[in-house]
């Protein structure tokens, strides 16, 4: 264990499925002194203090991968804090327009594709790069300044809703992060968002 390990003896689990960036999430946690476990074992996930649900890729194949191991029903029943990242956040919603994929249905929102034409925008899709997050709420965003920068890579977004805890403007305003009960989601890649991302991961771990 690294010396700067956050004092809580938390057991942090990263859900293992076909999400491309698991290694990146693991290393980001390592940089803030957390040794997480990557697993698809139901008992280990249920027993974790915190669960991170990463995601890069396409919604339907991600959902299929979860279903293969019955992880879809497991995630819905989790009671400890769960943090969905990028596609992981999107999968917490009702459904995604990406290949019309039914998702986990924890946040009753659709996941929609950016539509620059409808919004009189000339932005490119996917959004790739650093954008600001603002209207920050929730302990997840504790200590962050309004308009700090996070790294985004995505073509689909969650609309603003009652659970939105951070907003971003690209093509239109949308949810950069949400929080409902024990479920948190961030659209940006916290694991690649420099010190801002590290702060958010620390906040989550320290709940």
């Amino acid at each position: 264990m690294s010396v700067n390990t956050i004092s809580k003896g938390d057991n942090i689990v990263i859900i293992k499925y076909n999400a491309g960036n698991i290694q990146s999430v693991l290393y980001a946690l390592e940089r803030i002194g957390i040794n997480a476990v990557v697993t698809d074992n139901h008992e280990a996930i249920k027993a974790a203090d915190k669960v991170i649900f990463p995601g890069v890729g396409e919604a339907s194949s991600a959902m299929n991968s979860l279903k293969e191991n019955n992880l879809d029903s497991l995630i819905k029943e989790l009671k400890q804090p769960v943090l969905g990242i990028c596609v992981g956040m999107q999968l917490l919603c009702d459904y995604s327009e990406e290949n019309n994929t039914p998702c986990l249905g924890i946040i009753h929102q659709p996941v929609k594709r950016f539509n620059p034409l409808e919004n009189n925008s000339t932005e490119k899709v996917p959004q790739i790069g650093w954008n600001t997050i603002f209207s920050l709420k929730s302990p997840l965003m504790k200590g962050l300044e309004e308009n700090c920068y996070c790294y985004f890579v995505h073509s689909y977004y969650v609309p603003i809703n009652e659970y939105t805890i951070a907003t971003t403007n690209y093509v239109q305003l949308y949810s950069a992060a949400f929080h409902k009960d024990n479920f948190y989601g961030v659209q940006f890649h916290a694991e690649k968002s420099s010190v801002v991302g590290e702060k958010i991961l620390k906040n989550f771990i320290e709940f």
Partner: protein
Amino acid sequence: MKDDKISPGVTSIPTMSEGQTIGLAKRIIPCLDIRDGRTVKGVNFENIRDAGDPVELGALYAEQGADELVFLDITATVEKRKTLSELVNRIARHINIPFTVGGGVSSVDDASVLLKNGADKVSINTAAYKNPQLINDLAKEFGSQFVVLAIDTRMEDDGEWYVYLSGGRVKTETKCLDWAKQAVELGAGEILLTSMNHDGTKQGFALDITRQLSETLPVPIIASGGGGTKSHFVDVFTQGKADAALAASIFHFKEISIPDLKGYLKENNIHVRI
């Protein structure tokens, strides 16, 4: 653009009408050439222990405000793949911003090893030209966001921009825009465009072809080659419409520091992450 500086710490909630500071920032990307796991091209930093260590140099750039890093492997040995994957793993452990790895990726397997070791993107060039299906295969397997198509291009006497391969040694009859279009259709998520006419000259980026690609294609364009002064970067973002600008030696030799460059861009109303 109006005076719309939103400094860190200001907590007013911005609205759509407040304009340009809200939205995607233009990216500054230092490029590190790697041979046998070490940074080549001289580097000139006093404040790092080992200027030849790409991880240490990359971490320094990240700390200074680089938005992404590109590591270009120019090793030419059979041991290459192993050395590179170990290096990528070390980079991924230590660097908290996204990075692209290029050099010698010619199959899904090559790319998969890099992804598993923590690379965020791979850049492909000659191998993709010789086998365009590779772009499609990579995009299907890992997503378009993982696939950066690098194009080396040169404007010939006929005024047209042609694609060059193998590090600029082999000319093709394919026009740059045609190849870029095809690559995007096949699934390339970004284009890294290097003008051979401008590379190494420090006389400014190739604004026309950069702008042409940026306005024609629905994916981000990373401009490379020719950045020598801070105002060249302003030009490539305003006139060239680039989404990102890449440079190597001006950063390595501290001719321009990243904080200084970003400050200058901000003063010139270019939205950058500071």
